[in-house]
């Protein structure tokens, strides 16, 4: 929500020459707007980092064995590795999309965006269907949200992250749609950049969540 709320719409704002005189005020240049937007976006990341850090702290605080050692519940390791790889690959295509628009390669730009959105959706399905077991008829999950702190933290962390992935996919599709209508150019594409760095940020969060949930600590049996 707030991510998209950063003012990224100046592409279509005052699309005139750089020093644009309205008679009353000097409007800053597109470059200056972009710099403000970019700083705003990074401050937003800094803010969100505290949310994700709080979840990480919660995980390491609560997942303790009988002797206080760090533990983790048994999860589907293969699912974890696959969704991680999928998200990583999506980041590559997002980067490709940004480089393409900066070099005026429209088709490449649009196709890369679609691939990114597709991989993002695949990640979501992987988490919700495969790991969560939302549809037990397809895959039976390992944990329920009510399984003590193990369920609570797994669903809390992956859920909060999935919410960000979902908003990222929506943002990408929106940018793709605007891109098709010719809204971005190699010179003016802050909207694409905002979407790209948001997507990479979501990937970045997963880079820390993945080992925290799947890899660190000895496994512990969670009875149901």
């Amino acid at each position, binding site marked *: 929500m707030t991510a998209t709320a950063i003012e990224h719409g100046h592409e279509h704002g005052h699309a005139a020459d750089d020093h644009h005189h309205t008679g009353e005020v000097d409007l800053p240049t597109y*470059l200056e707007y972009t710099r403000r937007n*970019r*700083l705003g976006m*990074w401050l937003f990341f800094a803010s969100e980092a505290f949310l994700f850090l709080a979840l990480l702290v919660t995980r390491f605080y609560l997942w303790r064995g009988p002797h206080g050692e*760090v533990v983790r519940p048994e999860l589907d*390791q293969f699912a974890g*590795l696959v969704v*991680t*790889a999928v998200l*990583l*690959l999506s*980041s*590559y295509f*997002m*980067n*490709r999309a940004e*480089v393409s628009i900066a*070099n005026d390669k429209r088709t490449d730009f649009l196709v890369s965006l679609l691939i990114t959105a597709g991989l993002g959706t695949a990640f979501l399905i992987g988490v919700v269907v495969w790991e969560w077991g939302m549809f037990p008829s397809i895959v039976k999950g390992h944990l329920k949200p009510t399984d003590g702190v193990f369920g609570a933290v797994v669903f809390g962390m992956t859920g909060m992250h999935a919410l960000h992935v979902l908003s990222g996919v929506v943002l990408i599709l929106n940018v793709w749609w605007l891109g098709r209508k010719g809204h971005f150019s190699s010179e003016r594409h802050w909207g694409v950049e905002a979407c*790209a*760095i948001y997507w*990479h*940020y979501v*990937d*970045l969060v997963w*880079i*820390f969540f*993945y*080992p925290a949930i*799947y*890899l*660190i*600590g000895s496994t512990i049996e969670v009875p149901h």
Partner: protein
Amino acid sequence: MSEQSRTKRKTAIYREGIIVAITLAILTLVEYYAAITPPFDSFAILMILALLKGILVVNYFMHIRSVWSEDEH
């Protein structure tokens, strides 16, 4: 900039993306195997690997330097 050097630069940027992605993939695999191979499954090693991956993403994909650099970008 001549047409030729511009093309060269473009290919370089595309290549950079691929190299970073491959490095990230390798680091992820290292992470995965470290986790199932004691004594490499420690908190510190896994977090350092994650940190490395994070630095790559923040630097090459998110261009954090553009926040303070005053170049025309």
